[in-house]
């Protein structure tokens, strides 16, 4: 019985939240890796693009709620998501047109593009603040739990509760659908293949008649969709706060590098590696230990690192990968 309780505790406090978080990171890292593979720079504006897209989605959500439209047990934000994606994509395409395109034409060094993306980051950060302010926003509505802790306890008779929030289920399901669609798109469609070809060997792709402007445009649209979905899911699961999204940049980058920059499958693996490590390292294991070793009362929380240091986990994993396997778990672009 105690072992079961320990298992439920691990499930409740680690597996479930980390899976949802990992799915969000994976979507973010997919965007980073896509931009890196096609446009060949690390996009520092990625976190703020997530915030921007989410802010737009929230505004549309409020609009829908104002009109009395809802999605029943599902959050209204899911209905608003397509609008958020479309608006963000339009913004990204416009940004590419007025900002990035020039640097592609002069074949600027990647580090210059990264710098440029920092400028875009400033602008998007400011725009997000103007749009929606700096406060924490909760915008999840609909049913709260798929499995509520009380029900679970009553149903199983265990001492430990298990909560499965609907936002967590929605996150994982949505992320899975998006990933499956993205992989199908990249593997099977003509446009997807041309994007991979462009990422693989730009000169040969041009030689083969692949239109670079089209590839770049599709990349920005996909990146806008991925960031907006990731950001909205994160906001539904936790809350929306613009600055937190900026801070997600580190775990997202770490996930992309750990998986191998430019490798979509690596981005997903990286996202989950980072998420599970972060949650496991910052979890207080005392309760689980007490269940597993009966009669022993640990004198500390048995927490390896306090939650404030979750970034240290991403950073440490990042450093370890850089030291031992700079191309990442799944061979990305070489060093």
């Amino acid at each position, binding site marked *: 019985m105690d072992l079961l309780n320990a298992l439920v505790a691990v499930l409740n406090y680690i597996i479930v939240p980390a899976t949802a978080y990992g799915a969000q990171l994976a979507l973010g890292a997919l965007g980073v890796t896509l931009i890196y593979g096609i446009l060949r720079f690390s996009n520092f504006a990625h976190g703020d693009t997530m915030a921007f897209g989410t802010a737009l989605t929230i505004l549309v959500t409020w609009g829908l709620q104002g009109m009395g439209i809802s999605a029943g047990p599902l959050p209204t934000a899911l209905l608003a998501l397509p609008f958020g994606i479309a608006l963000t994509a339009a913004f990204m395409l416009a940004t590419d047109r007025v900002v990035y395109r020039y640097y592609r034409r002069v074949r600027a060094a990647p580090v210059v593009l990264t710098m440029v993306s920092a400028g875009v980051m400033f602008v998007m950060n400011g725009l997000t603040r103007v749009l929606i302010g700096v406060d924490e926003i909760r915008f999840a509505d609909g049913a709260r739990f798929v499995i509520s802790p009380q029900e679970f306890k009553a149903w199983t008779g265990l001492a430990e509760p298990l909560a499965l929030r609907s936002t967590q289920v929605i996150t994982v399901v949505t992320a899975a659908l998006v990933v499956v669609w993205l992989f199908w798109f990249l593997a099977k469609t*003509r446009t997807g293949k041309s994007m*991979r*070809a462009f990422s*693989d*060997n730009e000169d*040969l792709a041009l030689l083969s*008649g692949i239109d670079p402007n089209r590839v770049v445009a599709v990349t920005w649209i996909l990146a806008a969709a991925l960031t907006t979905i990731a950001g909205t899911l994160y906001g539904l699961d936790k809350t929306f706060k613009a600055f937190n999204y900026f801070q997600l940049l580190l775990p997202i980058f770490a996930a992309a590098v750990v998986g191998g920059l430019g490798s979509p499958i690596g981005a997903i693996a990286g996202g989950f590696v980072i998420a599970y490590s972060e949650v496991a390292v910052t979890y207080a294991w005392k309760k689980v230990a007490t269940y597993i070793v009966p009669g022993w009362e640990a004198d500390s929380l048995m927490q390896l690192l306090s939650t404030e240091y979750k970034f240290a986990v991403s950073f440490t994993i990042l450093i370890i990968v850089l030291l031992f396997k700079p191309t990442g778990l799944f061979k990305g672009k070489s060093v």
Partner: protein
Amino acid sequence: MSFLDASDMTGGYGAADILHGCTLKVEKGQIAVIVGPNGAGKSTAMKAVFGMLKLRGGSVKLDGEDITTLSPQDRVKKGMGFVPQVNNVFPTMSVEENLEMGAFIRHDDFHETMEQVYDLFPILREKRYQNAGELSGGQRQQVAVGRALMTKPKLLMLDEPTAGVSPIVMDELFDRIIEVARTGISILMVEQNARQALEIADMGYVLVQGANKYTDTGAALMADPDVRRTFLGG
């Protein structure tokens, strides 16, 4: 009039010219080979034919049509195929996807062409689902040639196709190239291995400092004592 007629090409990448009135002609279904010492401008001449280099003088005509001002992409549409010397495949894509990308500009059904490529290079059929980056050097070159054939070019240009492959593989590649020429495709190629290349060439161009030094049939050049002594090592 020759099928490819590139006359008096003059130009270079920067201020200094590399090509000085270089002329290259290829007849239908024939193999023309450009040989010469390092730095003679062999690859540059081929890139000029393909439009990767802005000419200050001269013209390029394909099948009687003047294409001097066209971009490389447009020349592909006009019936040119080009196989670069290095980075000539998509390494993380499968062999079949590489061929598909070769046919990117085509909007008709290209599966028949793909079958022809597989017939020409049977090993590619065997490895069609394997990533091109995982193949051996010789196999990769076959993918590269196959990719260029997917547009059904009338002129195929190869920049040192045998660079870095073993002599056995080189012989096999040359055999394939002859087979390609037999289907009616004209071939223009740059080669380091001058002797072997001239053996299969209908026409040979010896370039020195960006200009034609000797121009004759492959066999005649092989027989020319001057050419033998200076360029073929005796």
